């Protein structure tokens, strides 16, 4: 399974989760995502995601000047961003549990099996 495709759907949540632990600039967020285990995350995708979340009002930003090079642009969570992160985390949790149950639990999707099991229950009760 292509991890990058999976990551694409949850990159917003991953970035929000990283910034919940502290403000950061673009490449700093990339490095923290990789340290957390998301090695395949693309730098430009993170940079663009940061700017989109900022435009949506989920992040605030500020510039830190540097004497030795170009300035850094830091991002932090806004209250709306914290709220969005909680919502998205809940959605992700429910989705992950559903998928986990689907993958690891009993398969009840086949109509024949479901009918057979229902027949067994009825006969046992009778």
């Amino acid at each position: 399974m292509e991890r990058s495709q999976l990551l694409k759907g949850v990159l917003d949540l991953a970035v929000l989760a990283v910034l919940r632990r502290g403000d950061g600039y673009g490449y700093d967020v990339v490095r923290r995502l990789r340290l957390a285990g998301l090695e395949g995350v693309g730098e430009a995708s993170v940079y663009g995601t940061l700017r989109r979340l900022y435009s949506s009002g989920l992040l605030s930003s500020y510039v830190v000047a540097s004497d030795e090079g170009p300035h850094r642009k830091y991002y932090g969570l806004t209250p709306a961003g914290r709220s969005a992160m909680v919502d998205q985390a809940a959605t992700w949790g429910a989705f992950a549990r559903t998928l986990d149950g689907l993958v690891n639990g009993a398969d009840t999707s086949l109509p024949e099996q479901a009918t057979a099991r229902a027949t067994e229950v009825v006969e046992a009760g009778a």
Partner: protein
Amino acid sequence: MTGAPEGGQPGPDRAGQVRGYVADVRAALTDLSPDVVDELLDGLEADLLEQSAESTAPLRDVLGPPALLAAELRESAGMPVPSAPGAGGWIGPLGVVAGRVAREGAGVWWVVRGLSLGAVAAYFVQSDFREPLQWAHWVEDLLLPVLVALVVVILSVVVGRRGWLDSVQPRTARWGLRSIEVLTVLVLAPAAAAGLLRGVLLPPDLVVLVNGAEPVAVPAVAPAPRPMQLGDEGVWFLGEPVVNLFAYGPDGSPLEGVRLVDDRGRLIQLGPGGFIADRPDMPGARVFYHPGPDPALPFGVFPLSEILVPASGGLAPGEVPTPAPLPRESVVPLSGAGAP
């Protein structure tokens, strides 16, 4: 806050390369408005500098092609993807040029839109847009409208550069605003401009003096008087044009209704019909000279009557000429005049 740079301080060569790389990324985003591009690229140079400092490989091997990074950046930022590639491949330079033309065309459109809206706003700012343009009221009729139009143009460019109209939701509202824009530019603006420039583009308004049964038309904006020249109609005396003539009888008293004829029997006139000239005894005052209220009088019956021309240049409709003041109440009677 986290994030001390890793990989050591990049050298000045690397910094210069990254700066050039960011410029290439910018070139691949020319179809976006400058403010959006600035927002996208703000802080990117520092990120790329730190990112590239972790490797000694050539910059483009570390970061990849600028066009690719630009495409990923714009896609993840939720920006529209251009229909033609902005860079890369043989069509790349054409794409960049097309993007630039589109952007600069947008700039022209912002100015045109601003001028159009400004013309409409300026039209209503004028002191009284129902009256002919009066140069004497240049502050209300000229300066103020120009300032208003200028402010609207600046606002239009700011709105365009920030892409505010592009972000209006829902889409129907955005299209509604676009329609108003086009309607303003194509219909309202030309009408407003014609109104603003009335008296300049349009033929001068004519004010009709009711002279008995015979109306006389006079330009509302009077032509500036000029010294009479050889060949001009009129009478000269001591090098100056004569604007009125006063005749006195043998007893020294003024005469009215006098007509003068030259040696060839031609009726002397001082100007082409009614005319406007400076009055010698009133510096700065201009006078419309007129034979008088009697419509039967030809232009050549002295003394001419007069109407003082107001500073605005226009004559009120229906103004009646009044007798010109006598330069002398009387002259010395001729000897033997009045003698029995």
